[in-house]
C-alpha cells in the first residue's frame, strides 16, 4: 500500500525547499529598508560548507603537497628528447589511415549499404538509408534533416538510382562536418603556456587519449607535463603514471582524495618558465548530472584561466558507442567548462560515432582527434571527408 500522504508531503516539502532555493537564486531582491547585502553573498561566506552527501572530496586537507614525479627516463637536457621506445612498434611520424583502422567497420556498415546499392530509388531505399543512419547513432532528428535535404537535392538533380542517392547522403554528412572557420587542429602556441583539459563521463577514454597525445607531442619534440587531476578513482594516477613513463612525460600527482585544483595549479607551475611546452590535464570521469562535480570542473577551468590564455583546449572525450545521451553530455559539459572540441574514442569497434553529427550541428563542436585502439599510436586526426567516405564507401572500393 503506497502511503500517498507521505508522497504528497514529500512533494510539498521538496517543493517548499526548492521554492526557497530557486527563488533565492532568482531574485536578488533586497527588501526595502534592508542594508545592502555584502559582496560575500555566496562566496567567502563564514558558514563551513559541509557536503550534504558523500561527493568525491573536493576540498583537500591542507598540507597535501602534490608530488612531481620524474620519469625513469633521463630528464631531456638537449633539444633531442630522450624518449623510451613506445611499447607498440610503429614507424615514428606515420599515422594509420582512418580507412585502414575502420576496415572492419567499413565492411560492416557498407554491408548495409551494399544491399541498397545499384537499384532504382524507391520508398524502401529511403527507409533503408534512414535505418542505416539510425544504426550509426545519428539520431532521429538529425537523420530526418539529412534525408529531407538529400531528397530535395535528389529531386533537383534527378538522381534516379540508389548509388547516386547514397553519394548525396555522404556529401551531406561531409558538409555538416567540414567548416573552414572552425579549428579542427589542437591548438598549441610555442613560447606560451599551453594547457589542454580532458573532460567527460566515466569510462570514455580520457586517460588513454592523453597518453596517446603525450606520445604524439613528444615525437614532435614537445615537452609534456601530465596532471593527474583525477584524485577520485582508485589507481587513476597510477594509470596516468604508466603513460608518463611510456611517453617520457613528467607527471604531477597527489594523494587519492587530494584537491584536483592544487594538482592543476602545481602542474602549470611545473611547466612554467619555459620548462615544458604543454600540460595535459586528466580529470575524473563524471556524469554531467552531478552538479557538484560539474562545479568542481568549472573550478578547475577557472584555475587554468588564472593564467590568461593558457587554456588552449577543453576536449570532451566521447565514446563512439554512446547513444543520444552524447548530445546531452556535450551540452552540459560545454555549459560548465566551455568545451572546444571532441575526442571521439573506440572507433575501432563497430560503433559509428554518429552522435558527433548532432553535436556538430547543434553546438558547433568539431571532432579534433579520433581514438582507434588501446595502443599508444592508436590516435588519428579527424578528417570529415575520410570519416564519411569510409562509412559510406561501397565494398571493395
Amino acid at each position: 500500500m503506497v502511503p500517498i500522504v507521505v508522497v504528497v508531503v514529500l512533494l510539498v516539502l521538496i517543493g517548499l525547499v526548492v521554492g526557497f532555493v530557486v527563488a533565492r537564486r532568482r531574485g536578488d531582491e533586497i527588501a526595502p529598508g534592508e542594508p545592502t547585502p555584502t559582496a560575500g553573498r555566496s562566496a567567502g561566506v563564514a558558514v563551513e560548507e559541509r557536503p550534504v552527501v558523500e561527493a568525491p572530496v573536493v576540498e583537500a586537507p591542507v598540507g597535501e603537497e602534490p608530488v612531481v614525479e620524474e620519469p625513469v627516463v633521463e630528464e631531456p637536457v638537449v633539444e633531442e628528447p630522450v624518449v623510451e621506445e613506445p611499447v607498440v612498434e610503429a614507424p615514428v611520424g606515420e599515422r594509420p589511415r582512418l580507412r585502414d583502422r575502420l576496415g572492419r567497420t567499413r565492411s560492416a556498415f557498407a554491408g548495409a549499404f551494399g544491399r541498397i546499392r545499384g537499384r532504382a530509388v524507391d520508398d524502401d531505399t529511403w527507409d533503408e538509408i534512414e535505418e542505416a543512419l539510425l544504426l550509426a547513432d545519428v539520431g532521429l532528428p538529425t537523420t530526418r534533416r539529412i534525408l529531407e535535404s538529400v531528397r530535395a537535392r535528389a529531386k533537383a538533380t534527378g538522381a534516379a538510382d540508389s548509388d547516386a542517392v547514397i553519394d548525396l547522403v555522404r556529401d551531406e554528412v561531409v558538409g555538416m562536418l567540414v567548416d573552414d572557420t572552425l579549428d579542427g587542429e589542437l591548438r598549441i602556441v610555442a613560447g606560451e603556456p599551453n594547457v589542454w583539459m580532458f573532460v567527460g563521463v566515466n569510462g570514455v577514454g580520457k586517460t588513454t587519449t592523453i597518453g596517446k597525445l603525450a606520445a604524439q607531442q613528444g615525437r614532435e619534440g614537445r615537452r609534456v607535463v601530465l596532471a593527474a587531476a583525477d584524485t577520485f578513482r582508485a589507481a587513476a594516477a597510477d594509470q596516468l603514471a604508466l603513460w608518463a613513463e611510456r611517453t617520457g612525460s613528467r607527471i604531477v600527482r597527489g594523494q587519492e582524495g587530494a584537491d584536483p585544483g592544487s594538482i592543476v595549479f602545481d602542474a602549470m607551475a611545473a611547466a612554467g618558465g619555459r620548462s615544458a611546452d604543454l600540460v595535459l590535464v586528466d580529470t575524473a570521469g563524471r556524469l554531467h548530472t552531478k552538479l557538484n562535480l560539474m562545479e568542481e570542473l568549472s573550478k578547475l577551468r577557472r584555475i587554468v584561466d588564472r593564467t590568461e590564455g593558457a587554456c588552449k583546449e577543453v576536449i570532451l572525450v566521447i565514446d563512439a558507442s554512446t547513444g543520444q545521451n552524447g548530445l546531452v553530455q556535450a551540452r552540459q559539459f560545454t555549459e560548465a567548462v566551455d568545451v572546444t572540441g571532441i575526442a571521439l574514442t573506440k572507433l575501432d569497434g563497430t560503433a559509428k560515432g554518429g552522435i558527433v553529427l548532432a553535436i556538430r550541428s547543434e553546438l558547433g563542436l568539431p571532432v579534433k582527434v579520433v581514438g582507434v585502439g588501446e595502443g599508444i599510436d592508436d590516435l588519428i586526426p579527424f578528417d570529415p571527408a575520410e570519416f564519411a567516405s569510409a562509412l559510406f564507401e561501397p565494398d571493395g572500393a
Partner: protein
Amino acid sequence: MFETLSDRLDGIFSRLRNRGRITERDVDEVAREIRAALLEADVNVRVVRAFIDRVKAAAVGAELSKSLSPGQQFTKIVHDELVNTLGGTTGKLTMSPKPPTVVMLAGLQGSGKTTAAGKLARLLRGQGLQPLLVGADLQRPAAVEQLRVLAGRIDVPFFSEATDPVAVARGALEEAARLGRNVVIVDTAGRLQIDTDLMDELRAIADVVQPHNTLLVVDAMTGQEAVNVAEAFNDAVGLDGVILTKTDGDARGGAALSVKEVVGKPILFVGTGEKLDEFEVFHPDRMAGRILGMGDVLTLIEKVETTFAEEEKRRAEEILSEGRLTLEDFLEQMQQVKRMGPLQNVLGMLPGMPKELKNAEIDDRELDRVEAIIRSMTPEERRRPELINGSRRTRIARGSGTSPGEVNQLLKQFKQVQQMMRGMPGMAKRGKKGKKGKGPRQPGLPAGIPGLPSA
C-alpha cells in the same frame, strides 16, 4: 513544460474521433510517435520494430478506457509491454551447489566492469558469502591495482598475477580453494566483440573457470551498438545475465531493452553511482518508466520509505492534516529530505516536474544555508517568526553567516508557504485511501508554490 509520451500521444488522439475500441489505424498513427520516443531512448532500430509489432498486437481491439485518456492508455500498453520484455521477474545469480560459485564479468572497454566487480563482491559479502576478487585484466594500465584497492576497501581478498589472463584464472581457482572462498568474481579486460583474438582469450578464460554466471556489463548510455555487442558476446561465451551501469546519469537506457531482447537473459543489477554501495537489483518497471521518460516514481517512493522513519512519517501526516507548518517542523523535515540524497537526483525522479526546475541548478549547499538561518533563530522565533525585527534579523544573519536580506527573503517565502499549507488538509483527506473521498488520487504539485514556475 515537461512533455511525456502520454502528452504527445494525446495530441495525436485528439484528432481521432472514434470511441469504443482501438483500431489498427489508431495504432499506426501513434506507432510513429512511439518509435520516435524509443529511438530517442537509444533502443535499437530493429528492436523497436519488433517491439511495436507486439504493441500493435496488444492494442488493436482493446477497449478504450473510461478513466484514462487514449494517450495514457496507450502509454500504459507500451509501458506494460516494456516491463514484459525487460523481464517479468527479478533475476538472480545462479549459485553452485558445490562451491565456489564463479562469476565472470565481460564487456567493452570502459563499461564499468572493475567497479561492478567490487560492488558485487561487497553485495555478496553483505549476504554472508565469502568472495574472492580476481584481477584478470592485464591489458589496461593499473587495472589490477584499481581492483586491488577496491578489494581492500571492502575487506575482500584479491588475487592476480603478472602472467596472462588465462593463467590468472587458473590460479584464482586454486587461491579460492586455498582460502576457502565460496564465490569467485573474475574481472576481465574490456574488449571489442570484433577482436577475434581477445574473444578467443575470453573463451579460454571461461573454459578454465567454468563460470556459473557470465555477466555482460553494459553502459546505460550505449546506443545502437548494444545489440551488436550483446549478440557477439552471447555467441562467444554464452551470457547468463547483464549488469547495467552508470544509471545515475540521465541516459534513457534503451540499451537495456535492446540487450534483453537480443540475449533473453535477465538484467540482474544496475550501478547507480561510482561508490561501491551504489548497486541495486534491477527493477523492470522502473526501467520501463525511465525509457519512456516518465521519471522514476517507484524509486522515489522507496527512498521515502527508507529515509522517513515511522515517527517522521507520522509527524509529516500531522503537519499535512493540521495545515500548519512551523519553521521548526520545516527544519526537521528538511533533515529527512537531505538524507534522501542529492536534491538534484531526487528531483530528477519526479515526473511532471517543470523542465525549468529539473534544469535549475539546485545546490545542496543552499539547503545548508537555509538550515543555518533557522538554527540561528531562538525556539521562540521559530515558533513565531513575526517576532523577528531588524535587530534580530541582523543577529540571525551574523550567526548563520548570511545577510539580513537573505533572512528576510526566507521569512517572506515561508509565510507564503504557510498560507499554501492551509489548503493542505483538504488534499490530504482526499488522498487517503479508504477514508473520505473517492479513492486514491495522485495529487500533483500544488499550484502556487512560491518560486516555482507555474505549471
